[in-house]
């Protein structure tokens, strides 16, 4: 049986900061993969019939 851990305010603060950092890294990755995809495909990717 596992009892839930009661976080101290300091532990909660650190966990929140780690979570924010992970969110920022994930957002940066989305941006990097998008820009990288465009760069790999080249400018012709925008030149398509509508």
């Amino acid at each position: 049986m596992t009892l839930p851990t009661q976080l101290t305010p300091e532990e909660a603060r650190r966990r929140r900061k780690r979570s924010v950092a992970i969110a920022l890294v994930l957002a940066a990755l989305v941006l990097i993969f998008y820009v990288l995809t465009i760069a790999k495909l080249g400018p012709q990717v925008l030149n398509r019939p509508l």
Partner: protein
Amino acid sequence: MTSLTNTASPAPTFAPAVSPGEVADFFALLKPRVMALVIFTALVGMTVSHSHVNPVIATVSLLMIAVGAGASGCLNMWWDADVDAVMTRTRTRPIPAGRIQPGEALAFGLTLSVFSVLVLGLAANWLAAGLLAFTIVFYAVIYSMWLKRATAQNIVIGGAAGALPPMIGQAVVTGSVGIEGTILFLIIFIWTPPHFWALALVKAGEYARAGIPMMPNVAGPDSTRRQIVAYTALLAPLGLAPVVLGFGGMIYGGVALVGGLAMLALSVEVYRRRDGETANKAAMSLFAFSILYLFLLFSALLAEQGLGLFRPVLG
């Protein structure tokens, strides 16, 4: 369903405490100063290659090379936490200080290793990714887990890991490794022993306490001093090789000549001053100047190739 009154049920256990690590502690695991040096040397490897690459691809590649280097540093800290705990220079690192659990560092390092290699392969090419993977394995496994505690040649052979980034940079740009990347590799490789042994002469006691067979502890300080002079005597002319091969110009040539002579003079001082505080001072002067020397060599190449300041010395 388990009865709450069942006396045979296991005693309650508390869930593991959440990680006490700050974001900065995880960043420190990546050895940011080493990462900065890796970005710098890989960038120089890119610029001396005289080949065009999309700036986005170059930037993402540099980022992945840095993350891969950081991951290998993280795995090194995970493996060496016991050694780090007994050395003053390293005892405040996140794992020996208890701010990050070893398992967290291992998972962090492995994740970043795999991620950086895969993204570099997709962004640039698989030769560059393969070289990055080799660098990580060489540093984390061959050097950290084996050589470091096994032989006094640990930093000589292990120096290859720190010397590879310019080759990776060249591989990113050209898809191959040429003479430029190889010479830059050799310069860092031959620079590593006098750089680290100068520090090891001063910190010999700490390395002995930690059980690390550094050269001063195994072969003795005098032999180490002779080897420092020998490696520096190789390094000074090797530093001029880019001039001979045509990718180092007048600025680089001047820096390499003056810097190489200064390295030689400082190494001879280390050889001559063997006792007391003057010996430590001479060793620390060489250690500090060796960092500046390498930085100036690579900065000169970057300025010549990146800012168009290249003027050939020969012809």
